[in-house]
């Protein structure tokens, strides 16, 4: 079972690589925020899987919960910042 979770965690990481590509290439800032958001959600799962591998899920679940909450606040903040920044620029230009 530990082997299964090791493989699952590795597969999850490998599947994150295309998203890393979007993070580096992504034509504009929103694409990068999107990529960070997806990677953040997946990190939540990865934390629980690490907990399964170490057989300490009770502990890692707390990290995952905290991470999920803070990741949401982070992407919301990034989106709001981008939004307001653009609005400010437009107001400045006009």
């Amino acid at each position: 079972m530990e082997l299964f979770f090791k493989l699952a965690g590795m597969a999850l990481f490998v599947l994150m690589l295309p998203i890393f590509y979007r993070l580096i290439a992504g034509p504009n800032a929103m694409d990068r925020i999107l990529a960070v958001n997806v990677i953040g959600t997946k990190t939540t799962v990865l934390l629980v899987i690490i907990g399964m591998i170490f057989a300490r899920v009770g502990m890692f679940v707390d990290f995952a919960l905290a991470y999920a909450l803070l990741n949401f606040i982070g992407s919301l903040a990034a989106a709001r910042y981008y939004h307001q920044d653009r609005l400010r620029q437009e107001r400045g230009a006009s």
Partner: protein
Amino acid sequence: MAPMKIVALITVIITGGLLLYATGDFPAWGDPLSPANNSALSRHYIEQSRVETAVPNLVTAVLADYRGYDTMFETVVVFVAGLAILAVLGQGTSRERAAIQRSAERYQERDMINIMTARLIVPVLQLFSLYVLAHGHYSPGGGFQGGVMFGASFILIALAGGLPEALSRLSIPGALLLAGLGVLLYGGTGLVCMMLGQNFLDYHILHRLLPATDAVMARYHAMLIVEIGVAFTVTAIMFIIYAALSSRGRMTGGL
């Protein structure tokens, strides 16, 4: 910009590479022969902390008890950082606040979906942060982590409902009071220990004041008090930093 970006990228890659290289020197997971296990001091912590403080989580015992000075001054550093940000950016004059309020309201309509999600999440987030704070003795956590998450709950309110909404829940003077109270709670615990005739932050003497505790449980409970102080300061300073930076010191508008 482009050359700077390349320099930054190279710096990041080199730093990351060095860090990855350094992980190779780590002792294996749970290795009894690792250097950290072999000094007399760390052996004392590992073997005796459970006996001396009744706290199962070794990290918390070391952080809040054995190295209490360290943590206290970390808290003070956080406090001073918040004060410095307010000193540099200012709290905004009331006239400026009113003027910007009017112009801000025009283009800044809040989004209903974000507000509803924030309403659902904020109580959970606050309760979870208090749980992290209170269970620092058993599971990873403690004052800093709990405080950051409690501060984040106010930041979430500010992000979704606007900074004025968050400021009506935790005003800047209120936050400053809370931050000061946190440092006072920490330092005060130490001072009470001194008054009872012991060294600064030597908690075991507190069993004279706390009901139904012996010298060991006094250390256990004093750690919780100290962690609450840390959480107060961190919560307030997190929110102050966010409010000041997101509104460029004007305390209105914001993200």
